[in-house]
């Protein structure tokens, strides 16, 4: 297994490098069959340190993706509805490689957290090499009746949240005002083949079978989670558009690497309704809610997310928006976290944007946050304000933003100034300065002000390739001086 991982790692590295070098600048004309290649690579070097410990991490992290896309048009011209039937396929391979160590201060001792032979240092959750396949699907679109079919590893997003699944998704839109969508498959977990934990619900960490469970008793066994999802969309936005959706995910019972029985159960069973209306160009109304069908508590706990918002364009240059949002944090019902009382959080936001001219824009907002702690604990109330401005003078762009929070969660404030200077069509220089003030109520020694400066440059090498170099310095009484360097390269081209 380790040998295979090494081979895959080398292949993906080689592929990324090849893409970066071999793809010439320029765009080719579309043909019946088109191939898209892409690569994103980012290397970061910085140190992570926390007050209260003598440990810091020397992060030397490379994240690189190699992607491949294919498109084949099934017809020369679109049909009467403007749809062009098309077959596409997309695959992305991602490598995350950590070159740093975990050291004690002053480098008196550096240890490898990923070395299982080092009993004093081994951390099962840590890994030096991480290869996953975030996307791999084939799709047919533009078919009659608005039929779309997608098969493979894909993301899905609705008001119930984002998830990644190995699934088949079918969507049909026979009329402008009606659409049906269904998805069935398996939730992608960290323990899935080429998987990642990005969209798993908060619960117990799960690792694959390569980790000795006796060395990590806090880790749960791998589990398989089938899911189904269905949605109905009705209407269209000038009047009212509604989307009603249902989602169920269920962990299958199994055995852990030691052969012990692992309980299965429902991971989530939820329904959602979202409504949107835009009766006038200048007025938009939105509302949505998510109902937890597993919970049997009071309705205020079962409606785990609700939001309503209104946006009014008072004039061509002035927009005002208001939102009220309520969240009840939810956790994997297979973990004990799901059984603790958590405070529903309500947020109210009032925002306005003013476009003074094509070169100058302003924005400001007020925030209110209320957490219902319940019983004798009462509630947390916090108020915040923020402002922003952005201006452009030819090749020079400058912007500023600030925020202030005060209340039961303690004070927090920050100012961020940034500027960009376009030297020519290919080169842009960037700079940012920020000042944050913070005071952590849970950490007696975690308070202070951090000042940070960043300088960088973006280079558009050609139509297909761009590069970024960034250097950051931050200083605070908490961790002293900290430096970070970022190098990024992006290649994207159709051939």
């Amino acid at each position, binding site marked *: 297994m380790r040998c295979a991982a090494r081979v895959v790692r080398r292949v993906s590295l080689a592929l990324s490098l090849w893409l970066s070098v071999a793809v010439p600048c320029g765009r080719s004309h579309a043909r019946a069959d088109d191939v898209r290649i892409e690569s994103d690579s980012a290397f970061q070097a910085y140190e992570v340190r926390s007050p209260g410990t003598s440990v810091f991490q020397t992060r030397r992290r490379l994240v690189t993706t190699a992607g491949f896309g294919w498109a084949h048009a099934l017809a020369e011209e679109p049909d009467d509805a403007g749809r062009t039937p098309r077959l596409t396929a997309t695959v992305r391979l991602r490598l995350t490689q950590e070159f740093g160590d975990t050291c004690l201060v002053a480098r008196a001792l550096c240890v490898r957290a990923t070395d299982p032979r080092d009993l004093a240092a081994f951390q099962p959750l840590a890994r030096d090499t991480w290869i996953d396949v975030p996307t791999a699907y084939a799709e047919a679109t533009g078919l009659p009746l608005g039929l779309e079919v997608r098969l493979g590893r894909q993301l899905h997003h609705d008001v119930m949240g984002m998830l990644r699944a190995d699934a088949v998704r079918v969507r049909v839109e026979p009329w402008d005002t009606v659409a049906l969508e269904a998805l069935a498959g398996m939730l992608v977990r960290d323990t899935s083949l080429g998987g990642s934990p990005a969209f798993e619900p908060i619960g117990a960490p799960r690792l694959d079978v390569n980790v000795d469970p006796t060395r990590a008793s806090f880790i749960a066994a791998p589990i398989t989670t089938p899911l189904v999802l269905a949605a109905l969309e009705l209407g269209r936005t000038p009047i009212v558009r509604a989307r009603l959706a249902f989602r169920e995910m269920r962990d299958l019972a199994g055995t852990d690497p030691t052969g012990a029985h692992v309980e299965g159960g429902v991971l989530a069973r939820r329904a959602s309704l979202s409504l949107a209306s835009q009766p006038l160009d200048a007025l938009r109304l939105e509302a949505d809610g998510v109902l937890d069908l597993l919970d049997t508590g009071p309705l205020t706990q079962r409606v785990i997310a609700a939001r309503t918002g209104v946006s009014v364009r008072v004039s061509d240059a002035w927009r005002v928006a208001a939102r009220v949002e309520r969240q009840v944090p939810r956790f994997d019902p297979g973990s004990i976290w799901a059984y603790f009382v958590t405070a529903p959080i309500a947020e109210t936001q009032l925002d306005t*944007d003013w476009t003074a001219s094509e070169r100058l824009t302003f924005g400001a907002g007020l925030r209110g946050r209320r957490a219902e702690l319940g019983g004798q604990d009462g509630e947390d109330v916090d108020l915040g304000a923020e402002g922003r401005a952005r201006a452009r003078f030819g090749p020079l762009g400058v912007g500023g933003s600030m925020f202030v929070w005060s209340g039961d969660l303690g004070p927090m404030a920050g100012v961020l100034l940034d500027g960009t200077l376009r030297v020519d069509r290919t080169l842009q220089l960037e700079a940012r300065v920020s000042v944050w003030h913070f005071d952590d109520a849970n950490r007696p020694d975690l308070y202070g002000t951090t000042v940070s400066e960043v300088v960088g440059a973006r280079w558009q090498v050609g139509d297909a390739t761009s590069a970024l170099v960034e250097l950051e310095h931050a200083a605070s009484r908490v961790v002293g001086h900290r430096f970070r360097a970022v190098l990024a390269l992006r290649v994207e081209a159709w051939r």
Partner: protein
Amino acid sequence: MNLPPHAASSRIAHGALLALGLALAVALGLTHAANGQPRPRRATPEGRSAIIYPLQRIAIRMDHAHPAHRALPCVQCHTSAPASRASRDLLIPAESTCNPCHAAQTDREAPTAARCGTCHVGYGADGTRVVPASTFPAPRLHFSHATHVRLGATCESCHAGVRDTALATRDHLPTMRQCLTCHGGARSDGARSASSPNATPRTTRSAPATCTTCHLAEPDGVLRTRFAEGMLTPPDWLLGMGHDADWIVRHRWIGADQGSACASCHRESECADCHDGRVRPRSVHPNDYLTVHTQEARREPTRCASCHTTQRFCTECHARLGLATIAAPAVRATGRYHPPAATWERAHALEAKRSLAACVSCHAERDCVACHGALGIGGGLSPHPAGFANRCGPLLTANPRACVTCHGDVGALEGRCR
């Protein structure tokens, strides 16, 4: 690591830095507002996108409103327009088109500044002659005049007001709202009033309203949005999708409800680039976010979870730093992370209510089970709310794993849970 205590001078310095930053932010706006420069044209929803219609340089004198010009049908001069099938076709009349009426001015045997200056700018009264070339970059659209003419559209259906103006500019090219009057008929209210009532085409059939009907797309059908002039973004009136400063917050709701609209311009990989939590997006996490992330995690735990899986992303780092209880012995912190035990014993329950996700970022289930597990497994301090036994039956049936973690024997629970 031992750190120095609070110092009054430090607080003053912090305050001064904050005040300086605020002053800079305010001054940035005030100095610009007061600089006395002529105000540039205000951006309005009616404004033409410089990406769709790249900026033109029109070094020609032309008066469409001149009675002699008004009397002519448009095709008299724009002869090739009715048959044009591509937006890149140059439909500006050639000089020869003007000859029948302007022969005297176009006589190349006897050119004078006055004659040439009839149509061309750049001929000064003092004899100077700097005649710039006109440039008409092709619109970045699919457009067939022939199709529209065949379906009954008139010139002023799309180019309203040209007859009443001197020079026809980008402002006389149709906006997306005007296009959508016929294409899908989605915005017949606002769009129709935005143009002349007479400008409504005679066609009664709804034209296709897919994005790629007009916009340039990559071979996989995703719209081209990156151009030398910048990113092509949708207007606010279109499904509320204006990519303004608030968009970083709002996009999750629009995307959740109308993901297929987002997919017109964005591939799935763009979502994953941020939401997979691998590479720090600078637009979301500003400078030195590492130092202040604890504050935001406590304030907005659900937002962190939209990109970071708490029990993996957060815990791994906290464990490697020695902060988490699951840290390896060689690196585990020796000092106390939280406030003194005497106060934390009561306060930790409140903090768990506030942000349980923050607890999960360091603690494993076993840490809590030690006290909150049922007697025999833990200390027997129940975390459940009052009356829980009356409603826990369905939860036990749906997913017993958590029950087993604290109570062990599910069989015994089945009798107690209703």
